[in-house]
């Protein structure tokens, strides 16, 4: 029997698929739509201690091969976490609470609420490319990101994941954060990008700069995961431009144990997960793999 079960960073997943943070994860109604799909876990929007309105639209715009978004970490604040976690309980799915903030206190505050609400893991967003003083700015600041990770890992019992983006020091930062107790890495976030309208003569997004997602960034994500896995052999959840089952395989071959999907939901809806599942299973059978562990990272020497 071919199995798609996998364990990553202390989390057992029946299916190696989940939606990327930010996708349909800010309210229970939306999260429930995902829960009905072929996913192994649910991921919330990045939650800050207090609600954030985020940016005014346009918050996302299509490009020739992907999307540029600057949602601006809009979220309902930590008080909304219990209801989000309840969706997972209802559907028997682990919930990963994505956490954002500006310093270790804020991250810890939200992580504690996640743990107390029964979340299965937290994913610290140290790589959002379009929120001032948060995200990528923290990821690029090793002492601050270390402080945040140290605070969260020492004060929570559930697995702690860290989501990092494309940056110069990715391997080094990942290594340090793993030493501080991070259970798995989520790689990669969107890549800083922009679209300008040539008749309006202005950037399209209200925030001007955003993050590029979708097929465009897939080869960038594959390389980032490859480099990190090669050096650190760490548990990795891959994300970045996955839209077909072949992409899932590619991510796993360079070290991802599970994957998250974002932009592909725009074109395919949650049915994309069924498509990924069928394709991955078929490929495993063709290649005579019984489970995912057999081929994670084998393209890395």
């Amino acid at each position, binding site marked *: 029997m071919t199995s798609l079960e996998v364990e990553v960073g202390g989390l057992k997943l029946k299916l190696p698929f989940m939606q990327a943070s930010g996708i*349909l994860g800010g309210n229970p*109604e*939306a999260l429930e739509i995902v829960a009905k799909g072929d996913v192994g876990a649910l991921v919330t929007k990045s939650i800050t201690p207090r609600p954030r309105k985020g940016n005014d*639209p346009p918050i996302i715009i*299509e490009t020739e091969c992907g999307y540029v978004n600057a949602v601006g970490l809009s979220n309902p604040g930590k008080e909304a976490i219990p209801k989000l976690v309840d969706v997972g309980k209802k559907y028997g799915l682990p919930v990963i609470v994505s956490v954002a903030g500006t310093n270790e206190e804020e991250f810890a505050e939200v992580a504690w609420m996640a743990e107390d609400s029964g979340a299965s893991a937290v994913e610290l967003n140290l790589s959002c490319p379009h929120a001032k003083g948060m995200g990528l700015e923290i990821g690029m600041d090793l002492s601050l990101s270390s402080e945040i990770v140290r605070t969260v890992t020492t004060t929570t019992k559930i697995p702690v994941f860290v989501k990092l983006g494309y940056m110069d020091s990715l391997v080094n930062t990942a290594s340090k954060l793993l030493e501080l107790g991070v259970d798995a890495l989520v790689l990669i976030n969107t890549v800083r990008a922009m679209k300008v309208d040539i008749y309006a003569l202005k950037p399209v997004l209200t925030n001007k700069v955003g993050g590029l997602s979708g097929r465009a960034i897939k080869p960038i994500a594959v390389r980032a995961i490859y480099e990190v896995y090669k050096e650190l052999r760490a548990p990795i959840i891959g994300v970045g431009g996955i839209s077909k089952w072949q992409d899932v395989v590619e991510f796993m071959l360079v070290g991802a144990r599970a994957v998250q999907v974002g*932009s592909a939901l725009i074109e395919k809806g949650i049915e994309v997960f069924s498509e990924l599942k069928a394709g991955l299973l078929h490929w495993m059978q063709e290649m005579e793999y019984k489970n995912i562990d057999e081929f994670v990272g084998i393209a890395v020497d």
Partner: protein
Amino acid sequence: MKYEYKISGVLRKRKLNKYVYEIYVKWAEKPPVGTFFMVWLPGFEAIPLSVADWDKGALKFLVQIRGQTTKALYSAEKVGLMGPLGREAPRPSSKPTLIAGGIGVAPLLYMRREWGGKLIYGARNSEMLIPLDELGGEVIVATEDGSKGIKGTVIDAFKENLAKSDIYSCGPLPMMRALGEMARSMGLRGYGSTEVPVKCGMGICGACAIAGRLLCKEPWIPLHLF
């Protein structure tokens, strides 16, 4: 690319009352009934606007003045249009009954032009109604203060003119919830839509989730789900 803004010229605008104006924007292709556009005013923001009409290469939107963007939009010469978004509303099997609350009248005007039918239209007071003489056809009006038509809510007016099927309604969420309750208890059949914060328009941010649906993908949902 479906999800990009096309800059298009504003052809004409006109105040309909103190709070609402209409704006015509160039757009070559007739959009399906029940769809909407994200309308971007460069330098300001983009807002979701239902198609209120389309004729001879021009889209009509109704805009309720609420803030900077809706104020500035009145003076705009060009806007960016992303759409049509959502999808065509399910077609009625006979002349529909259209129930509009406030600015929710916008998409129903387009339905009425395409499908005909009776319009039941309510607002808080007569000042908030758009000019009735331009609506044509059968219109039943309700105002909460009784300054025009039936005194009461649009739901009250609907109860007096009850239909069981082919109901299309758009209005504030409490009004839609009331209709949803009626649908469940009385077996009314029809579809409704309501104003929700549409932020991405692509079905991924989840801001517009209601009744397990994403309104930006499926703006017209069965009434009994409200």
